[in-house]
């Protein structure tokens, strides 16, 4: 963990659902300005961990700290005020509202006037390159655009931390590249600490500085992309044994693209 303390930390967190141990003694830190990856098989507890970090899931044991400040039991909306933003695995846009209002809502929720929030929303949309969607009602968006708008909503008013739950799901390789660029800019230009959950392992390996691997609620590996790629435990639990040839080409391609 970083010495300057600018990180969002889950320390020894355990969560249990009626006998099912969703998380046991998980410790994970998301540093400001960097991209941290979180991978793991289905049902490993990744989403649950994000829920914990954003106040949607009370912890059974352990604690959450935001840059040194303990945050246990704080309501989700207050955490957002403190600068912890997230997206959802299942989109969750405000379906009745136009895209720009979807973003504006967050600004307003964070205390901006409507005028400021609208200006900010338009700035963010432009920054993401999706200004053309501004007036579409969110309910009519195709799946992939939903994800982009969700990210836009989350980075309104520049949070300190951004937790992304499978943002690239359903995207083609090309589309996930665009996304990768955006995530990189969010971390770099906006100095946001990003936690990225993805099953698109290529994307994770490409983007993250540090990757946590979760299996059955436990962290089984932490390391740099290279370490993770080579870890047998990860390969066994997660990537599938025969098909690891899937990974290199994408990484190679990514290197070319960037």
């Amino acid at each position, binding site marked *: 963990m970083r010495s300057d303390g600018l990180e969002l930390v889950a320390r020894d967190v355990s969560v249990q659902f009626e006998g099912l141990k969703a998380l046991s003694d998980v410790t994970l830190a998301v540093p400001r300005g960097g991209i941290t990856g979180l991978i793991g098989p289905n049902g490993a507890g990744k*989403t649950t961990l994000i829920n914990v970090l954003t106040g949607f*899931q009370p912890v059974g044991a352990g604690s959450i700290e935001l840059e040194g400040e303990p945050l246990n039991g704080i309501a989700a909306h207050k955490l957002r005020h403190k600068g912890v933003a997230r997206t*959802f695995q299942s989109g969750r846009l405000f379906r009745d509202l136009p895209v720009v209002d979807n973003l504006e809502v967050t600004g307003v929720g964070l205390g901006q006037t409507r005028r400021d929030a609208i200006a900010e929303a338009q700035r963010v949309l432009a920054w993401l390159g999706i200004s053309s969607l501004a007036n579409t009602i969110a309910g009519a968006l195709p799946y992939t655009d939903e994800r982009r708008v969700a990210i836009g909503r989350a980075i309104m008013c520049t949070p300190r931390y951004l937790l992304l739950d499978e943002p690239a799901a359903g995207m083609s390789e090309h589309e996930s590249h665009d996304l990768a660029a955006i995530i990189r800019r969010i971390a770099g230009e906006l100095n946001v600490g990003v936690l990225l959950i993805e099953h698109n392992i290529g994307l994770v390996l490409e983007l993250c500085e540090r990757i946590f691997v979760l299996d059955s609620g436990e962290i089984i590996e932490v390391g740099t992309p290279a370490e993770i790629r080579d870890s047998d435990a990860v390969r066994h639990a997660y990537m599938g044994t025969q098909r690891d040839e899937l990974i290199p080409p994408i990484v190679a391609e990514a290197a070319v693209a960037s």
Partner: protein
Amino acid sequence: MTDVLQIVFDALSLGSLYALGALGIALIFGVMRLVNFAHGDFIAFCVFAMLWPSIDAAAIVFAGRLPFYLLIPLLLLIGAVLSILSEIVVFRRFRNTNPATMMIASFALGFVIRHLLLMLYSSRPKSITLWPSLGLPVEFLGAHIPMLQVVTIMITLVVLVVLVLFLKRTRYGLEMRAAAENFTMARMLGVRANGVILLAFAISGMLAAAIGLILATNSGTADIGMGANVMLIAFIATVIGGLGSIPGAVAAGFLIGAASVVFQATLPHDARVFRDAFVYGAVIVVLLVRPQGLFAPKSAKQRV
């Protein structure tokens, strides 16, 4: 001791009535997310079906004269047909709409039925005599319990068990619950959704008829508004029982009945007129403590 027993029976019998009502509401709510505010008027309609339309003060009994083995099936049939018709003519067209829209449509339907009855029969309550022998008390451990109470409780329990088994154990029940949750997805899995929904309506209509019979036997009157109260309590019971939980709805029906009886029995005299305020207050408290309802299935709480 006998006092307590008496209260228990009073609570059970009132509770059964609410529970039967809650079943009828919960079933339809289950398949269509529709709170059928016309249910109370279905109840009244079934009762009035025993009388010949006339605005005279004295009732002209019609089907009410039939022997019970004909009357009961006939009335259940009337309830089922009315309910099915309402589905085909009205509710079918509201399948994909907002629950509030459906609710108002059901309310409007009830309004139409009510005023139709008003036109045909006038607002004056009519008297009906059904099975006077059911009014006689039976003795049970020193308590005097009207036969009708016993019958009501038994009917409720039987209906409940049959319905729960039906929903839990049969393919139809499974399909009904699936359609309830995600209508289109169920259809994409080959569930014949219209049939399933019609069945739910038919059962609900029969339950309305059953309540009508019990109310009419108990009170000896047919009154335009006679189902309204049961419907409202049933609606509340459906929610505090835990939406989507049939046993929950029934249990909550019993609970509200019990609360009402217990408040009536224990409140000091001057506070007794405020009994309903206590009952409604208790409902609010229950909701605050268990917003998903008392017996909500685990799934009722959406995960993030």
